[in-house]
């Protein structure tokens, strides 16, 4: 039997569509018109003449370098997360030891540690380590703050592997490493792709760590570029909004292909 549609929520969903749609409409149209057209005609009208100049100007104003930096940060964070989280999740799901239980509790607690709360000591640690204004100084804390949610998502996926499969492998005398390689990793592929998408999203959109831990143009990331654009050329709305569109373009492309992975991963965070 199918559930009947929930009309109340259906109505609300249409209101929500308008709420999401309007700013996106303003955003996209504004980027395709000239600055003077935007200030005289207002954000809701169609462009008098369509232009891609805003995007080209942004790219020639150093946004390309910002992009490259963000790409490096994102790829590194994903790599670190992929290296650390699968073995961790495997241990959490399968190890019997008390220590592993404590480790899991530490990560659960970590879910609620906001980056703002540790930003002052992070500044201290990163400066002392000589990593201030280096991308690596942004990568390490960003990856660390990805770990709790990624761990939660991946342990969820690994718990779905039935004990019988482990027993079957144990019959063959498989070592933990072999079980991990031949059973756990292949069967948690869905969870792994959620983790990759989630970590990439976090790293790409990260703002606080770059804001505090970098200062030069050579290490500027996309979000920071947006923020500086806003403070320095705030009146050039079409230019600013084109930068917003550029900043979300890569993540939007990932979303188009990996929507299912992201959605499944986040749906699992709620618990039963």
């Amino acid at each position, binding site marked *: 039997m199918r559930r009947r549609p929930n009309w109340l929520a259906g109505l609300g969903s249409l209101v929500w569509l308008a709420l999401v749609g309007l700013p996106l409409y303003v955003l996209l149209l504004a980027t395709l018109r000239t600055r003077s057209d935007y*200030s005289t005609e207002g954000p809701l009208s169609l462009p008098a003449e369509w232009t891609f100049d805003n995007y080209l100007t942004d790219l020639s104003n150093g946004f390309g370098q910002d992009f490259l930096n963000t790409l490096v940060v994102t790829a590194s964070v994903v790599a670190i997360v992929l290296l650390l989280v699968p073995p961790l999740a495997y241990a959490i799901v399968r190890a019997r030891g008390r220590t592993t239980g404590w480790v899991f509790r530490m990560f659960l607690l970590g879910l609620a540690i906001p980056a703002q709360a540790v930003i002052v000591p992070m500044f201290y640690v990163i400066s002392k380590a000589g990593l201030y204004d280096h991308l690596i100084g942004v990568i390490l804390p960003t990856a660390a703050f990805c770990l709790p949610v990624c761990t939660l998502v991946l342990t969820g996926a690994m718990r779905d592997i039935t004990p019988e499969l482990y027993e079957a492998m144990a019959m063959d005398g498989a070592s933990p490493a072999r079980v*991990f390689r031949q059973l756990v990793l292949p069967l948690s592929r869905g969870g792994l792709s959620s983790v990759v998408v989630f970590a990439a999203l976090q790293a790409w959109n990260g703002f*606080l760590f770059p804001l505090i831990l970098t200062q030069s143009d050579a290490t500027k990331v996309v979000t920071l570029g947006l923020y500086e654009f806003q403070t320095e050329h705030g009146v050039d709305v079409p230019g600013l909004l084109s930068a917003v569109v550029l900043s979300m373009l890569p993540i939007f492309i990932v979303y188009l292909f990996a929507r299912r992975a992201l959605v499944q991963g986040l749906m699992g965070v709620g618990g039963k």
Partner: protein
Amino acid sequence: MTRAGRTGAGVTRPGFAWAAPAAVFFLLFAIVPLLLVAVLSFTSWDGITDPRFNGLDNWTGLAHDPVMLQSVGTTLLLTVLGVVTQTPISILLGVWAAGHQRNRAVLSAIYFVPLLLSATAVSVVWRAVLDPNFGVPSQAGWLFGDGNLLGTRAGAIGVLTFVGVWQFTPLHALIYQGGARAIPQVLYQAAAVDGAGTVRQFFHITLPQLRNTVITSMVLMVVGGLTTFDTVLILTQGGPGTDTTVSAYYMYQKAFKGFDFGAGSAIALVLVVVATLISLAVVRLSGYDRMRSSAEGL
């Protein structure tokens, strides 16, 4: 329920070594700074020379600082407003998205777009949309009056709350969608046999079954609300005056603009303690800590 522990003897299990690299990494870059923030809150530190202990100076200073007290009030207000506005909307959207309507997949793909935007992008877009001279208010005076929404305390708080809804509802709706999908259909079938309508089913089955999801989601909202920062920095700069100077923003101002890192640490420690207490509460209430021995998954 199958338990991981009931598998036959002789099954080789991974040792702690498998968890160690991630644990050490997390300790170094999250837990150690968390402990350091407590130490730094008892020091005077300008960010350049070495920190020097100064006892309770930062704490007594903050206790008598009117902006600090105001910021705590504003933070709590924004947090409560966030939970109150985001919870019902995300429950409705999430439950709706868990259904089987034909247009659901397409619509929910659009709904979740805010999820992809950085807080920076969200704030920049809304600032442009709401700009009194060039934004939507200049064209819809009937709705916005003189249009300078960010110029008054009530307006600025309202905008921050609204932008919070816009930004975070998709995430929570997704979490609720997951929760709603996990509700056994047989409960609805039984209720339908008894003649219960959609609304009754919602209040008597859906909501009670979502109890744990509500707790998890609310905690994420509270922690997010307590640490609101990016939107304040970009949309209001804490203004007008200090009307939207939330604690996280005040910490940033104190430490990184005023070079008083000791006072900044003290504010951060308050945030840590509150957030930790809430997270401990959720680990208990939601039963996350018991899930270790359950094979049900999340």
